[in-house]
């Protein structure tokens, strides 16, 4: 078991009221799984992604990641966990604009304190995996959207994390480039990487071996991607009919 969430709540104080973005989430993910998390905006999907990524700590509940209880960790401990266990891939790429592709990929290894030689070797290896060895010394502004996202994936891979966490990775890309990125994820999954893909697109979820759907801060569906996507669309239609 790589990830085990039990009774996770994340509450915010909004104008004197307590709003639960996550209202008791239980979720278990094994090593090597490729899981989509789907949900409408406002469903709590982003909060779940932040908690899973150790960017946010839950108000209540337990979160065990790779054998470590991370729910009550301090900021700096969480930084170390993010650095070693999690490779982030963001919708907006989040590359450092002034640094080259290579330097961007090296960044998590810098914070791990690896010597320059090893950083360089690992970053090159990761860039090779995403077929970007021709663009090592280009800055993000000199790269296309698809290339930028591949740099970001290489950055996530270079740290050799136990979990790749992708937040709407195709959201800023055209459909052809998006499909290319999804194929890259599938190849990485085939190599044994654990991947969590957060998305609002049922079509993407349908391609994943497993999907969970979150609504109002709770997991309401869990199963093979295609089935979850189908049920999602069905309820969506029901909802639309009810409204009309």
């Amino acid at each position, binding site marked *: 078991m790589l990830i085990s969430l039990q009774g996770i709540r994340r509450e915010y104080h909004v104008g004197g009221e307590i709003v639960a973005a996550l209202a008791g989430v239980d979720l278990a993910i094994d090593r090597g799984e490729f899981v989509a998390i789907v949900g409408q905006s406002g469903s709590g999907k982003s909060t779940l992604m932040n908690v899973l990524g150790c960017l946010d700590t839950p108000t209540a509940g337990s979160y065990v990641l790779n054998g470590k209880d991370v729910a009550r960790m301090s*900021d*700096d401990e969480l*930084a*170390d966990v*993010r*650095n*070693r266990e999690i490779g982030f891939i963001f919708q907006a790429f*989040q590359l450092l604009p002034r640094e080259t592709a290579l330097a961007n990929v090296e*960044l998590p290894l*810098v914070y791990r304190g690896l010597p320059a030689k090893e950083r360089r070797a690992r970053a090159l290896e990761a860039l090779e995996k995403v077929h970007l060895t021709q663009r090592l010394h280009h800055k993000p502004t000199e790269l296309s959207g698809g290339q930028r996202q591949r740099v970001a994936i290489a950055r996530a891979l270079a740290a050799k994390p136990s979990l790749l966490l992708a937040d709407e990775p195709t959201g800023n890309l055209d459909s052809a480039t998006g499909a290319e990125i999804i194929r890259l994820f599938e190849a990485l999954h085939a190599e044994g990487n654990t991947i969590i893909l957060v998305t609002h697109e049922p079509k993407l979820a349908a391609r994943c071996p497993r999907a969970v759907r979150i609504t109002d801060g709770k997991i309401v569906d869990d199963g093979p991607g295609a089935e979850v996507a189908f049920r999602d669309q069905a309820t969506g239609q029901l909802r639309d009919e009810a409204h009309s």
Partner: protein
Amino acid sequence: MIRAFFDNLRLAFGTFVAHPLRTLLTLLGIVIGVSTVMTMMALLEGLRIKVNKDLSQLGANVFRVDKWPQGFRVGGGNRMNWNQIAARPPLTLADRRAIAESCPSVLRTAASSWQPGQRVRTVTTETQPNVFILGTTVEYPDTSGITIAQGRYFNDAEDVDGRRVAVLGPDVADRLFPNIEPLGQEIRLKGRPYTVIGIVERRGKVLGLFNLDNQVLVPMNTFLAAYGKRRTSSISVEAKDAQSVDRAMEEVTRVMRQRRELGPNDENNFEVSTNESSAKSLNELSTVITAATFGVCILSLLVGGIGVLNIMLVSVTERTREIGVRKALGARRRRILAQFATEAVALSLAGGLIGIGLGFGLAALGRWALGLYTAVPTWAVGLSLAMSSGVGLVFGIYPAARAARIDPVEAMRAE
């Protein structure tokens, strides 16, 4: 640790390259502060070295008797009121004779008197009205350390007779006789003709201001006849040897008190001072100027520091997203803090280095263009470096702490 430091240094450098003008403007306050203090210290140190050297060149075992207190008295207990000093009787040639006759420890004495701001003419040309006219007795070269470069000093007969002969400082000689041999030529002081009999060896300026070479020396009696008999003199006294200086000073004081009929409880109404005491008072003065300069410098560094604070806050705000990404990828708080603190220190240290360079440049310029004697003391360089990096640390720590506290989720959402 060291690897992290170099990474931070590289990042800081990258920021400067990305915003060269902004960086330069931010540095300006620190550059000005540091270069000011460097230049002032160079001037003072040069002055101190030069004056101490000058004073040590003045005849050994020499002290002076004056109406006015010597040089610059800073602070000190019994400061006298100006009117009281002005009311003191002048020192005369009769005082000098008495000292020479009744003080067994005294080897020789010389008297001198002066009139500043005079114009010296020849038939064809004239100087600015800034020449220092000095009337002296014949022993003056021995007690004051001047040497004759050309010709001779005047002799006793010329002094006693009040003959109109003159020894020129090199600047006056160059001004009046640029192309001809000055010896034997005629100059005019207050309309009266004097024959040039000698030229003094070049000595430079004292305090960077008072030009020892822009002088005309004439016999004492000639001077008194031309510029007024009632003026005071300064009497230089040379003791027989180094061991008898103190005794000679006591003897001179006793003779002077007798001549002025001072009671046992009256204070001296004249001054006896050695070259060392002048050097000491100069050193005291330079300490005060140093302290004052530091006051100015610290103000300027404060302004510079506020500049650093401001630009670092801007930098942190601008780079909120970058900070968020760094934290998401595993940078600890301390690492972010160190990154921005390093940047602030590097920024102000760069200002310090430029300021030090500029200070050396200004000191060299002063030496070359104005003929000032300057020397940059090593401690001033060290202090400038320490102060500028200190400013960076003090004013950079708050923005750095703000950067370290940024929440990565919020930050990555920022535009």
